[in-house]
């Protein structure tokens, strides 16, 4: 079984301070720590497990600059067979639709039985690339997937809904499956794997290597445009308690007492 996994390098902004650039179009990325997008990491793990069980090849693909080699090497270190990075100046400014188109151009000739992606990128939050990639490849898809069972040419997938409910769908392979966090427990790369991955080849493909025109990618190929970023208006800021941990703990206890909660 040939599996392709799409991964994205994203900044870790969960606990970091996020500042907007002067032109208001981007965030300042230089002080941030970068990592593989969380749901993509689960997709990779799922692919590694499928490969271990069913054999075949595992290719990782990423749209990104040279920096993304770091994430692709981690994928190789964990057991991916090959890595492709899609990189071109012309790709800059692509929206989710244009990214899906770039991925589609690279993946359609890879003969994949299954394409796995994360269900959402933690930076732009689009939650659309995997599903659009499927539509462009002309393949069925499922998203928010928390369980995959492959039987011959069918995948039975469990898709998460709201409120603890889930749906089970059967989809025909080849297909694109966008996975949700928690589907598995992602492994860490071994020290030896990391060392070996350092010297592995990462194939880099640009616009001229792909069946795409300039107008298909970047801002020209995008359907939406980010006009400006801004810090969300605060509706009601919490009353912040100041002081040492000892002092704030004490104050919290008094507040709880006052409210009759203790």
């Amino acid at each position, binding site marked *: 079984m040939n599996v392709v996994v799409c991964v994205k390098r994203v900044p870790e902004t*969960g606990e970091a301070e*996020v500042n907007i650039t002067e032109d208001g179009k981007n965030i300042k990325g230089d002080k941030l720590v970068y990592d593989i997008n969380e749901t993509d990491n689960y997709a990779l793990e799922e692919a590694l497990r499928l490969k271990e069980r069913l054999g075949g090849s595992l290719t990782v693909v990423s749209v990104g600059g040279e920096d993304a080699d770091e994430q692709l090497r981690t994928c190789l270190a964990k057991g991916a067979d090959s890595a492709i990075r899609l990189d071109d100046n012309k790709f800059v400014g692509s929206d*989710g639709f244009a990214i899906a188109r770039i991925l589609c151009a690279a993946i359609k000739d890879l003969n994949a039985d299954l394409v796995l992606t994360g269900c959402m990128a933690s930076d732009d939050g689009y939650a*659309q690339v995997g599903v659009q990639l499927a539509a462009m490849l002309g393949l069925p898809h499922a998203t928010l997937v928390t369980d995959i069972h492959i039987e011959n040419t069918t995948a039975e997938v469990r898709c998460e809904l709201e409120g603890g409910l889930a749906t089970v769908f059967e989809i025909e392979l080849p297909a694109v499956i966008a996975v949700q966090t928690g589907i598995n427990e992602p492994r860490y790369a071994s020290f030896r794997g990391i060392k070996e991955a350092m010297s592995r080849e990462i194939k880099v493909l640009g616009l001229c290597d792909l069946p795409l025109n300039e107008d298909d990618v970047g801002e020209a190929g995008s359907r*939406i445009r980010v006009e400006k970023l801004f810090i*969300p208006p605060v509706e009601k800021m919490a009353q912040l308690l100041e002081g040492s941990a*000892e002092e704030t703990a004490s104050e919290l*206890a008094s*507040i709880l007492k006052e409210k009759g909660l203790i």
Partner: protein
Amino acid sequence: MKEILCLAEHRSGELRDISLELLGKAGELAEKLGAEVSAVLLGHNVDGFAQQLSTRAKKVLVVEDDKLADFNQAAYQKVLSHLIGEHKPVLTMIGHTAFGMDLAPSLAVETDLPLATDCIGLEVQDGKLFAIRQMYGGKVNAQVSFPGATQHLVTVRQGVFPIGESKLNGEVAAVASPLTEEIECKKFIRYVEAEAGEVDITQADIIVSVGRGIKKKENIPIVEELADCLGGVVACSRPVVDSEWLPKERLVGQSGNTVKPKLYLAVGISGAFQHIMGMRSSETIIAINKDHNAPILNIADYGVVDDLSSVVPLLSAKIREVKGE
């Protein structure tokens, strides 16, 4: 007349709130765009929903087909692309729900419509539509345009727009189903209900909830101790369940439980909207987080910006002291 289409969403015999939230917002946009609002209802035996929707939309387009009884993106997409082709709506609105996330992106490709997902705001300026959506886990908002577009597709976050007034008496119009055969490539098999656990956190008056900031499983006992002091239960946000540090029955948020306790004490929870949706109606919210930019502080009543591993044990001790234990 221009038209706005809003996809009604229903599940297991219930019309979901997002359907009415979409119609409320669509009504407001319709005035600015010079458009009329039509609800789109796909399903089997859904007359009751059609009546409900008709009080909030000028028209309800009903496609009745047993192949649409349960949500199946592939079937829904065929019907919607057909309707969009016929009606050429200026705007099509779908909930940014699990169904919407499955459907809207591929529908956008098929119909060649520009898509903005997970919108928390929609505004019209000089006749042009702009969407507001969040990025970087809610730390940044983005204003997004649709360059050159005359038709738009958006998915809208749940619980953001209020449910519109029911003051209309819209026309219910049956549309013949364009589905001719079963969809073979994607089949709905069944729903899976959440497993009931030992504790029903929705019944608790006091909840101490723990998030990614707890760092490792070995630290969970400090929040259990705090919950114990308060006579409450321990709940958590998604990363804690994903790491299997606590069972899924303890999950608060969009994909888990919605809770409304007297006290919600969020420990090491940054406050992604998926989590906020499940707890924002709590009476008193206290957040302990080391990040002063954590979105949870925007909805909490009280906040402590500090390391949870020092504050939490001290708080437990203080509470025991106050209680005279």
